[in-house]
């Protein structure tokens, strides 16, 4: 890990440890906006982290942004960090101005875009109700990516939530298509979508880490039959498997982050979303099995991690979606080139 990444890791960790409170999460879940957390986050310039240094970024490119997303996942931060960071990045890359305030992203790459009485319908847009506007990603000419800004004044929302209570709103734009569209060349909408999938994989790695830590702490503390339940081999082995799944998911996410901008970027992201999706069932399932009934309560914080894990594995493509695509890719390679492909990853 390079020095800049460590600095990001430490600063963001401190920020979220202090500012992510039960109240801020409750505010989000009851439909409100956690203003104090957002002000600190935005005030620190963290939404611009993936931009170049001249534009206020950390000079790490997207990778620093993903470090931040993982830590946000660890703290269950009630903010759309993936959308805010990548949305800012997309605006910057397309040359559109970056407005003040919270922004979110809608991927309208899958044809044909939804329509409702001649108005563009964007389903399940994170935090659209609270955003200043939506960055809409559309297929551009010649495989490029179109980026357009839709201001809050130009859309209505129908409020929805995911399992974790995070806003996932249907957005109805007042026109058939956004007014101004700028292109990002040499970047396909498919690639843009994969960046969001990696964002969820990074968040899963963070939240799964927290779930594991809670599980170990609880197993060492909770006593039954005269000793901590963590002394029982049956419990130990379950937690060992839980940890294996987490570290596999974490390694896959880190590998994909390390391969951003390389020819293997897409395949590594696919692997990351597959492995993080696979890990969720076991990590969350074991966490709840070990915690027993207390972990099933709203009051106990484990649900903050597990409800997020169950939501995030589905968003931007679940493991079946990515497996099919990666599988088709491998089948097309055939036996001869498969091993070459596997070893080309990491040189």
């Amino acid at each position, binding site marked *: *890990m390079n020095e800049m990444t460590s600095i990001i890791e430490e600063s963001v960790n401190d920020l979220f440890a202090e500012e992510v409170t039960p109240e801020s999460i409750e505010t989000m879940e009851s439909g409100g906006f956690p203003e104090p957390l957002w002000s600190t986050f935005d005030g620190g310039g963290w939404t611009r982290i993936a931009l170049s240094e001249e534009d206020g970024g950390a000079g790490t490119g997207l990778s620093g942004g993903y470090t931040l997303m993982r830590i946000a996942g660890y703290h269950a931060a009630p903010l759309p960090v993936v959308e805010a960071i990548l949305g800012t990045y997309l605006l910057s890359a397309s040359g559109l101005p970056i407005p003040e305030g919270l922004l979110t992203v809608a991927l309208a790459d899958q044809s044909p875009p939804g329509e409702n009485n001649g108005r563009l319908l964007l389903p399940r847009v994170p935090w659209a109700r609270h955003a200043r506007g939506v960055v809409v990603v559309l297929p551009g000419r010649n495989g490029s990516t179109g980026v357009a800004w839709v201001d809050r004044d130009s859309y209505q929302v129908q409020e929805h939530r995911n399992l974790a209570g995070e806003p996932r709103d249907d957005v109805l734009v007042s026109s058939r298509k956004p007014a101004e569209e700028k292109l990002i060349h040499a970047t396909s909408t498919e690639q843009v979508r994969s960046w969001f999938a990696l964002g969820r994989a990074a968040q899963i790695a963070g939240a799964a880490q927290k779930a594991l830590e809670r599980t*170990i702490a609880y*197993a*060492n503390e909770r006593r039954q039959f005269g000793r901590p339940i*963590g*002394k029982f*081999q049956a*419990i*130990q*082995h379950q*937690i*060992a*498997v839980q*940890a*294996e799944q987490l*570290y*596999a998911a*974490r*390694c*896959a996410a*880190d*590998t994909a982050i*390390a391969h951003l901008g390389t020819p293997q970027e897409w*395949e*590594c992201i*696919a*692997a990351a979303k*597959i*492995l993080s999706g*696979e890990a969720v069932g076991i990590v969350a399932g074991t966490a709840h099995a070990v915690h027993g009934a207390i972990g099933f309560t709203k009051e106990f914080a484990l649900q903050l991690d597990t409800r997020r894990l169950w939501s995030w594995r589905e968003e931007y493509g679940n*493991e*079946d979606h*990515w*497996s*099919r*695509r*990666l*599988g*088709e*890719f*491998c*089948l097309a390679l*055939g*036996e001869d080139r*498969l*091993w070459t492909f*596997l*070893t080309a*990853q*990491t*040189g």
Partner: protein
Amino acid sequence: MNFEPLTLDRETDLLRKEVRAFLSDQRDFLKGGYIDCWSICEPAFSRLLGEKGWIGMTLPKQYGGGGRTYLERYVVVEELLAAGAPVGAHWVADRQTGPLLLSFGTEEQKEFFLPQIVRGECYFAIGMSEPDSGSDLAAIRTRAERVEGGWRITGGKTWTSFAMTCRYVLLLCRTAPPGSEAADRHKGMSQFILDLESEGVTRRPIRNLAGEDHFCEIFLEQVFVPENRLLGEEGNGWRQVMAELAFERSGPERFLSNFRLFSEGLDFLRTSGKGEIGARTIGRLAAQLMNLRQMSLSVAGQLQAGELPVNEASIVKELGTTFEQNLAEALRGPLAIEPGVDAGERMSSLLGKSILTAPSFSLRGGTREILRGILAKGLGLR
């Protein structure tokens, strides 16, 4: 826990190409590639690899070694395994006995054994398990007693792969007086280099369920071992064995044992019109394989840096062998062919061999349960 991604440098790329070029000329030895190829003994092939300088690569040049890094060895080994090359003869000597001799051996031992190992001519077996001591390795009973000029060993070892073809076995024995192990079971053990042609040694193959007989048992009746064949310090055996196991657990052989089934199975699906049915399965397995390789490489990098990533190695071994065992389970549905044992039916026999050898994958080198125990401790449980 550290699995930081690692990137191999350019030089390993050239080495990889060299290995691939070599392997493309070795079709007679490869026979299309074996399942569980590191259990296939082919001394002539081992000697050929020795000539290429691909055995004992990390050993110093003064003993004939290559003076190369663990990562360079990694590249060579993964290429051999992916091709299904018969690397069983020299496998143990190359992977663990060589490095162990280098760490704990006397100068005489290093000068005598290492050059032979490097040439692919001197093969070692692992002398750990006994009939009453499997996962509970500290329960071994084979005992060495001091006599004039050396030691006399009585007892026996079992599940000793390749004992019929190996000249030597690295034997873990009790050397403290009987009864002393009650105080500390891990004390009073020592390792010996035993010449399997010594008087008093009886070897017997044990046929496994796949019909192979690389498994063996060894009976030792008052076998004399000269003083200069004690490895390391008397009483230090447990610590040495633990160091030996660290080399065993995180390598590419923990997820590539049946790679041929994956790569050829993929072609079979494609060419028989089952690509669509199999795509999801192939994609999932490919993702796991990509990641296992990265995790394993990360551990190799840490070993190269002089660290001892015990927990990480345990994770790689458990996830890796689970992957190997799951490979046939996952592919048999889309493949939809009957598993067989006849070499003439290539796909059927790859599947059959994978099913028949799968149970051993998670047993050798420490069972799943032992690994989970190590990991639980590493995570701060117990």
